[in-house]
């Protein structure tokens, strides 16, 4: 929980849930587990608002509660962690992936679930059907069964999972549907709940789609009900129809998406390094291992060449001996994406997941050094990664860079902490003339440091975006007002002159400014996503090394 992480989490919470939730959230991040009274006392926010903020945080899975540590029966304590909040940054990527895999329906299902935190299957299906219907032509609507089947597919491939039921949820008031799945209202002394939040996968029904009776089609909201949209949204939840799945709430399974992203990264690396066919072979191997490999495994289960051959997509009509050649080349490649685990079945092959992640992380570090300091510094950096420990003179000789420049570059890298100095004394008194000074690069600590820098970068981008919007607040408000006036005029059938008159209320330079602002905000947004890609690679690498220990 570094300062950069807390800062970024605060910004993300503020953007998605508002200032109050952000305040409560960051307070909990900094101070660890606390009970309600302490939170109110230390943040100075009223009881009501704190309760609501905690509800929001719990609803989205960012906060967990447990009975107090001091004594059984002491007030419940609330705890947040950075990891879950940082996922908010990745929401666009999750939604986009769902779109590529399961089309618009999948995209909307994931989007709804991300926005609401968790929902029952029936309410998800209804909401998504309504939204899809809204975008369809007049007279057509989306059938519930289509949405349900998309939902089931998402569950089958483990992208969605059931929320673990709360052990003390008996006190839940199921008659207040305004905030579904509200846990025990914190003010009252809660019944003792399990001290450690159970993982969703510890429940056997985690991926079982309940039997749901959902017959119907999406309802299209008419345009004159626009103002009542908010109330309608709440009304859908107060719908007294039951569909057989009350109390079963679903959430997005982030880990599964992460595995998918990791596979994608490995496949594209193979495509870059070797060729398209090799990457297709690796894709096939990873697809076959999706369900048999645990998330923290070092490599996939061994697959025989025969199996791979059978599972290749039919569009890739490569003969068997050629497949063997490709597999051999993959094994021989210095990046070691694929390893050979045996000879049975025409050769048993595994994908080396951890090694691939380490290689990708290393390539990321090298890329950063190259872009930031130039290709000769990058040469020195790669040299040190390969040779581990080198003296000053050896660095100059191997890299073929003149002594003065090499020294300069090494010291710059040293000051940025990308390179470390190891002293090996010849005599016990550490006299400088009698000590070896060796330069070295440690990949894992450097990756962690770069990860923190990425967090800071994203926070900077968000702050700049907020600043730009604030600067042009007056202009934005004016343009919004004008748009509203235009819309109402059009709806009530005004004449073209009136419309143009209203449009001209925004002057040309103001229009330019607005356009520039729009471009800036888009650029900052997409930059945040790009940095998130780096964050994902580095986080996966760091986590993969930790799971070994």
């Amino acid at each position, binding site marked *: 929980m570094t300062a950069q992480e807390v800062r970024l989490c605060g910004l993300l919470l503020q953007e998605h849930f508002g200032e109050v939730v952000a305040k409560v959230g960051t307070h909990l991040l900094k101070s660890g587990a606390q009970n309600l009274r302490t939170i109110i006392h230390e943040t100075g926010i009223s009881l009501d608002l704190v309760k609501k903020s905690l509800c929001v945080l719990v609803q989205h899975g960012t906060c967990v509660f447990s009975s107090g540590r001091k004594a059984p029966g002491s007030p419940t304590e609330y705890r947040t962690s950075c990891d879950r909040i940082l996922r908010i940054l990745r929401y666009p990527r999750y939604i986009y992936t769902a779109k590529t895999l399961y089309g618009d329906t999948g995209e909307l299902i994931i989007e709804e679930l991300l926005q609401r935190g968790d929902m029952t299957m029936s309410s998800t299906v209804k909401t998504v059907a309504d939204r899809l219907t809204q975008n369809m032509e007049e007279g057509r609507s989306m059938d519930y069964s289509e949405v349900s089947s998309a939902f089931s597919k998402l569950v089958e491939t483990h992208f969605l999972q059931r929320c673990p039921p709360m052990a003390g949820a008996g006190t839940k008031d199921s008659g207040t549907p305004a905030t579904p799945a509200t846990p025990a209202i914190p003010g009252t002394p809660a019944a003792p709940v399990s001290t450690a939040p159970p993982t969703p996968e510890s429940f056997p029904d985690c991926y079982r789609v309940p039997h749901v009776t959902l017959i119907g089609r999406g309802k299209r909201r008419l345009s004159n009900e626009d103002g009542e949209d908010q109330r309608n949204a709440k009304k859908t939840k107060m719908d007294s129809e039951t569909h057989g799945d009350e109390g079963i709430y679903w959430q997005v399974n982030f880990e599964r998406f992460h595995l998918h992203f990791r596979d994608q990264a490995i496949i594209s690396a193979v495509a870059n390094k070797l060729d398209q066919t090799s990457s297709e072979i690796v894709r096939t191997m990873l697809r076959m291992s999706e369900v048999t490999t645990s998330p923290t495994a070092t490599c996939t289960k061994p697959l025989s060449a025969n199996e791979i051959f059978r599972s290749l997509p039919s569009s890739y009509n490569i003969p068997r001996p050629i497949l063997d*050649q490709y597999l051999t080349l993959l094994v021989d490649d210095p990046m070691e994406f694929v390893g050979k685990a045996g000879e049975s079945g025409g050769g048993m092959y595994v994908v080396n997941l951890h090694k691939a992640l380490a*290689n990708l992380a290393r*390539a*990321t570090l090298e890329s950063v050094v190259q872009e*930031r300091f130039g290709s000769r510094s990058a040469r020195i950096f790669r040299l040190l990664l390969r040779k581990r420990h080198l003296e000053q003179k050896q660095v100059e000789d191997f890299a*073929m860079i003149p002594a003065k420049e090499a020294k300069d570059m090494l010291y710059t890298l040293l000051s940025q902490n990308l390179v470390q100095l190891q002293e090996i004394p010849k005599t016990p008194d550490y006299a400088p003339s009698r000590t070896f000074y060796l330069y070295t690069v440690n990949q894992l600590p450097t990756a962690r440091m770069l990860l923190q820098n990425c967090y800071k*970068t994203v926070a900077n*981008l968000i702050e700049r975006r907020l600043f730009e919007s604030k600067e042009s607040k007056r202009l934005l408000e004016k343009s919004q007002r004008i748009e509203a006036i235009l819309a109402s005029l059009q709806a009530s059938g005004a004449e073209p002159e009136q419309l143009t008159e209203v449009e001209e209320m925004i002057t040309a330079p103001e229009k330019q400014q607005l356009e520039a602002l729009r471009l800036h905000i888009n650029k900052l947004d997409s930059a945040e996503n790009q*940095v998130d890609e780096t964050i994902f690679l580095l986080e996966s690498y760091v986590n993969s090394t930790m799971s070994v220990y």
Partner: protein
Amino acid sequence: QTAGWVQCEELCQQFPHGITDQVIQNDMPHLEPQQRAMAINKLLSLGQLDLLRNSSGLLYRMKDMQSTSKMKGSDNQEKLVYQIIEDAGNKGIWSRDIRFKSNLPLTEINKILKNLESKKLIKAVKSVAASKKKVYMLYNLQPDRSVTGGAWYSDQDFESEFVEVLNQQCFKFLQSKAEAARDSKQSPMVQRNSSFATSHEVWKYICELGISKVDLSMDDIETILNTLIYDGKVEMTVIAAKEGTVGSVDGQMKLYRGVNPVIQPTGVVRTPCGLCPVFEDCHEGGEISPSNCIYMTEWLDF
């Protein structure tokens, strides 16, 4: 009295390995110890005896007649210095080291060195490691690589441009070979194997290009190819080769081929923060902050 020391001299000549005081006493028992001492001293002052000490006592030895004739002060020292320089071979020897080995004073050394240089028996070569140091070696010897820096140094200057040019040429050669292999559309194994080039092939190509005024050895080319490996553009494998195959060294050959980078430049370097020189100093509300960052402003307006 005079016969005493003449007899001693004859005794010394009889025993070229040296005689002890005891031997003289045995031979001339009538000589008093004082007289013996005087005789020895006389011979010593004439410079005809060497006074040595061994485990049993003092030893008096006749100086070699040959060397005594040449032994005219500086000449002998010159011989000594010349010997030391000769021993240093083609690595040369520093003047201070000559002093240590010969125990001669510095001024003498310098005089002798000047003398030898004028006689064209030795020469001074500037060392590339420490530009102030001069090492001396025999006139007709080629200085060793460690002294001159080899092919990459011309008069003490590291030729970075030359290295850069070689670097690019080698890479182009390997890249075009890899592309040709890819375009040949043969089976993948054949494609990969034909994209490899041995260090010998690269060396021949570079020699034929004629861009180098100096003769480059295969080792030199391998150092250049290694820098390409550290640039991440080339990878190397070693294969076993029959002795006698062109380009094989100790039964193995090094193969190189051009490779593609494994990822595109990573996301964070596409933002101004990823490349910012004052990243550490940037805080919201400080003098350098995201809100007033000039790099961001430039980047946004790009």
